[in-house]
């Protein structure tokens, strides 16, 4: 089974890109599946169900979505193998712009949209920097110049990634992304593979349910801003 990890800010068009790329793959129905990692709610399963794509949704709830992803992705792979899938896609929303649910040796795709601001690529951290392929969506409604500058800003952060433009509505460009998916390596398990980047640190009193504000309530990994002296 091939594993593809897709990440990207909320509402950047991940689900649409995945749906169009699955269509462009042209594999037999039911052989490509999706596991969606989300925080609180998600309506994407309806869209996958409509297309009769095997799918599972996992909610992180109060757990850091990145930590949640890495502790469940192995289970996702096992599910995909049991289902007899030929391609499994994981989809996760990068909520803090730092998330990078990417694993060494696994094709990593980052989806960002052209409408999010010309400097967005410079603000997204490891999620963009460690991706193999950066997919840019919503390019059909901005000017050619803005598309070019956007792609340039992506290359400034991640010079080695392949940048592809995909229209999530018409599917334009999905053929090229599908070609990259076809070349992804076959895997049997993720055990002992390593993440490309460390996950956000998160062991402080608020992680364990503290709600009160004040220094005396704070323990563990806490970082304070040094504001200017006035």
């Amino acid at each position: 089974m091939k594993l593809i990890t897709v990440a990207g800010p909320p509402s950047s068009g991940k689900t649409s890109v995945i749906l169009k790329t699955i269509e462009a793959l042209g594999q037999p129905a039911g052989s490509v599946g999706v596991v969606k990692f989300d925080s609180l709610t998600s309506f994407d399963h309806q869209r996958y169900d409509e297309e009769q794509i095997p799918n599972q949704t996992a909610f992180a709830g109060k757990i850091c979505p990145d930590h949640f992803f890495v502790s469940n992705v192995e289970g996702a792979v096992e599910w995909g193998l049991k289902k007899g899938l030929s391609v499994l896609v994981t989809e996760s929303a990068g909520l803090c712009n730092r998330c990078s649910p990417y694993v060494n040796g696994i094709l990593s795709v980052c989806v960002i949209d052209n409408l999010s601001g010309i400097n967005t690529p410079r603000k997204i951290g490891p999620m963009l920097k460690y991706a193999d392929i950066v997919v840019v969506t919503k390019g059909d409604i901005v000017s050619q110049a803005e598309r070019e500058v956007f792609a340039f800003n992506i290359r400034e952060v991640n010079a080695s990634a392949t940048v592809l433009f995909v229209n999530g509505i018409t599917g334009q460009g999905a053929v090229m992304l599908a070609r990259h998916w076809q070349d992804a390596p076959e895997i049997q398990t993720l055990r002992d593979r390593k993440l490309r980047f460390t996950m956000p640190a998160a062991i402080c009193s608020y992680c364990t349910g503290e709600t009160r504000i004040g220094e005396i309530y704070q323990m563990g990994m806490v970082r304070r801003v040094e504001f200017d002296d006035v």
Partner: protein
Amino acid sequence: MKPIDYVAEVSSVPLGEILRRYPLVADYLANIRLNGVDETRTLPEVLEDIDEDMLEEFGLDREEVIYHLSAFLAAFSPVKSSVDEISSITILGGRDKVGRPEMVELTVTPGEVVSIVGPTGSGKSRLLEDIECLAQRDTPTARQILINGSVPDVNKRFTSGGKLVAQLSQNMNFVVDLTVQEFLEMHAKSRMISDSAPVVEKCFAVANALAGEKFTPGTKVTQLSGGQSRSLMIADTALLSSSPIILIDELENAGLDRREAIKLLIGNEKIVFISTHDPLLALRANKRIVIRNGGIAKVIETTAEEEQTLRKIEAIDSILLDIRNQIRGGGFVTKDSVPEFQER
């Protein structure tokens, strides 16, 4: 140049001099929050004083920064950013919606304009898409696109990041909050043009010449009218975009001198495809592709008679334009506004 070729330079030359040699490095440093450091020192010296935890947030340690910046410089070295010469593009027919083969082989060279005509929903956009992704019989139409007479290599097709093809459609807008001047400078910078002032100035002048109503360099791009936006997009695509092929999805008449717009693109040796319903645009092309039922029904070369008739159609068009201006200016339309037609 490979990344390794830059390591010694990056390690030993003071940052101020590095920035002078490679202005883009300012962006690189800003992206990892290293802007505002002492530029009289070298990068390794600067890094000594930087908190490793801060670098770690970007997935880097001190040594990696040096290699990463070297890789950045290699990626943006001039050799890599140039686009290969394109001397022709060829469309080999596939099949239409019912599987009937298209008996077409059409080669287009720089400076040529091809229009694409046909009813709404007949498949004009699909043809533009096939050109954009350099289809190799792997799209629903099974068409094949050749570059310079041969199959483009896989790398060019899948990694060029859309560089071969620039697109322009009526749906496109400016979304960035910048003035016209800043916008053009930003685009020039991304093209690694070291002295951008002349090309920015030219681009502005040309865009203004195309636009029906004038605008200033200080106008916000988001505040331009439809015609002004289109004019700026065309001037920018002709003069600042590296893409040799331009796909245009309809170009409306309002506030834009389309004849000059197309001349500008041809003059800059672009290969232009225009999908259109407008007879003036369709006939101004050297050839037109007629789409029917998802397939290319035929390719027509604009005849001498059509070129002559085009002048008459233009005359009719300018009559309509005059009437529009009369009404816009609060005037009345008179019987004399429309000349008598002899025939018909």
